[in-house]
């Protein structure tokens, strides 16, 4: 995860929950999304880093509705993460949560998101003048690892809801290290399950893949041609994946957006 130390705890735009007010190690704000703040903190030991996802209350919402939504979302995200973890899908583990106070503490994942690594790799190759399609074994390997990670998640009955290359991390494998391996090496870890749900419907799975495909198209158009590698690995990852790929054709045809009545 990217760490921006310029955003310190004191600069938080909202009042913080008790757990973030007196930590042994000061919490660092890492990212602010539309509905959650992500902090880096520690869990139990000062040496064990963790990520803390905090959903502040929204002043525009009726307090009853606000509490209901926050509780529901934290619990459902934690449930999905726990389920994935139990079934061996690479996701951060859940350490602790307080759905009433609106926070969830999860495992800290080292490494960087695929979006950054992939763009760096693509631009470095462009500088070196390597034409597309040449010596891209590393890229093919990455695409296949993405495909099988997504397939494993779908196989256990979870859809992510927001699959982009910003929500896929590359965790360094200890034996190789970043130097020994390479920019595109590492284990794929799926993160940010804020929009995830438990579903085994082929439609939902196909939409997940479609969103990922569009994310590749818009942010890494040079790697888009290799998206078939993602789908190839996906097909082998669980029983019934071939039906999802057929459904994906349908989803592509209609696009996400329908033509509508005024």
């Amino acid at each position, binding site marked *: 995860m990217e760490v921006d130390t310029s955003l310190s705890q004191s600069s938080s*735009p*909202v009042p913080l929950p008790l757990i973030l007010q007196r930590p042994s190690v000061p919490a660092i704000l890492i990212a*602010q*999304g*539309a*509905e959650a703040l992500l902090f880096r903190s520690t869990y139990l030991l000062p040496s064990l880093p963790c990520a803390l996802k905090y959903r502040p209350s*929204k*002043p*525009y*919402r*009726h307090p*009853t*509705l606000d509490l*209901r*939504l926050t509780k529901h979302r934290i619990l459902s995200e934690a449930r999905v993460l726990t389920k994935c973890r139990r079934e061996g899908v690479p996701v951060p583990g859940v350490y602790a949560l307080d759905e009433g106070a609106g926070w969830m503490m999860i495992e800290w994942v080292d490494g960087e998101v695929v979006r950054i690594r992939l763009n760096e790799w693509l631009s470095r190759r462009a500088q070196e003048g390597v034409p597309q399609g040449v010596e891209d074994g590393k890229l093919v390997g990455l695409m296949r690892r993405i495909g099988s990670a997504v397939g494993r998640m779908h196989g256990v009955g979870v859809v992510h*809801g*927001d699959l982009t290359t910003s929500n896929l991390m590359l965790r360094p494998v200890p034996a190789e290290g970043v130097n020994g391996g390479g920019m595109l090496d590492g284990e794929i870890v799926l993160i940010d399950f804020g*929009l995830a749900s438990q579903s085994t419907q082929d439609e939902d799975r196909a939409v997940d893949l479609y969103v990922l495909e569009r994310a590749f198209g818009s942010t890494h158009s040079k790697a888009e041609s290799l998206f078939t590698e993602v789908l190839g690995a996906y097909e082998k990852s669980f029983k019934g994946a071939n039906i999802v790929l057929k459904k994906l054709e349908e989803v592509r045809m209609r696009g996400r*957006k329908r*033509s*509508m*009545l*005024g």
Partner: protein
Amino acid sequence: MISIGLEGSANKLGVGIISHPHPNKPAQILSNIRHTFISPPGEGFLPKDTAMHHRSWVVRLVKQAMAEAGVSIADIDCICYTKGPGMGAPLQSVAITARMLSVLWQKELVGVNHCVGHIEMGREITGAQNPVVLYVSGGNTQVIAYAEHRYRIFGEALDIAVGNCLDRFARTLEISNDPAPGYNVEQLAKKGKILLDLPYAVKGMDCSFSGILASIDLLAGELKANPDKRDPITGELITTADLCFSLQETVYAMLVEITERAMAHVGSSQVLIVGGVGCNERLQEMMGLMARDRGGSVYATDERFCIDNGIMIAQAGLLAYETGFTTPLEESTCTQRFRTDEVFVKWRD
């Protein structure tokens, strides 16, 4: 340059005349009048009756708009009309009027996308530069942001529009459709206190309202059968005002949430609310609270420009006309389906 705009995609017939005195000066509204077809309580407006209303009023409205503006036919540069989206029969009535005026006055026609009309009028009136737009009306629910000559739809209602949900609930309660069903729901909601549990259907940047409508209709039915129903927590009597309150609190929270997500996505802190539902004070208030937390601001207009009107068609049409866009007579059709992102926005950078 001066243009006249004709709008009649739903139950409002509007005629407006706008002038662009100079590229660097604000537009001048010369006239903006409207006549609304109001159906009896418990009923919606049917296309056939609405079209008849438009046909019988349009000549009077055009004459009145010209007189109010104090312009002659020679001053008019182009005739703008709503090409879509909207209800077929009412759209046709207005398109025929536009064609007739075009032939009669020997002026160019400009077909305008209704949604783009709302956005352009909102931008002109509020001065918002590059906002995320929430377009909410009886027929449309869209979260829009501008990028590379298109108004791109980031999120939208997957089934019925939010205004349709409110209007249909007004029909269930059989409250008046005058001046607008949504307005009367809003007035009732101001007296409500108890928040009842309703579904909350947000999917990423999209949302859905049909399940909420079914759910609140059911609650209204229960209340009718048993007027002594009490809130299990406070023990207070539940009223129809509480139903309206719960409905508004739920659907507007959904709208603000998807707007916030779009703002975070495109990195904008301005939000512009357009469309008939945009008049709602509670929606404006909630949006303001959200925007304040993001260090931004909310831009909204009043009923003259929020609710369907002719001036917005004149504004968007004139912007297109100034870039050389016209609609030839033989192509001056209308269409019920016309997406916001189909329009090439040549007038913006």
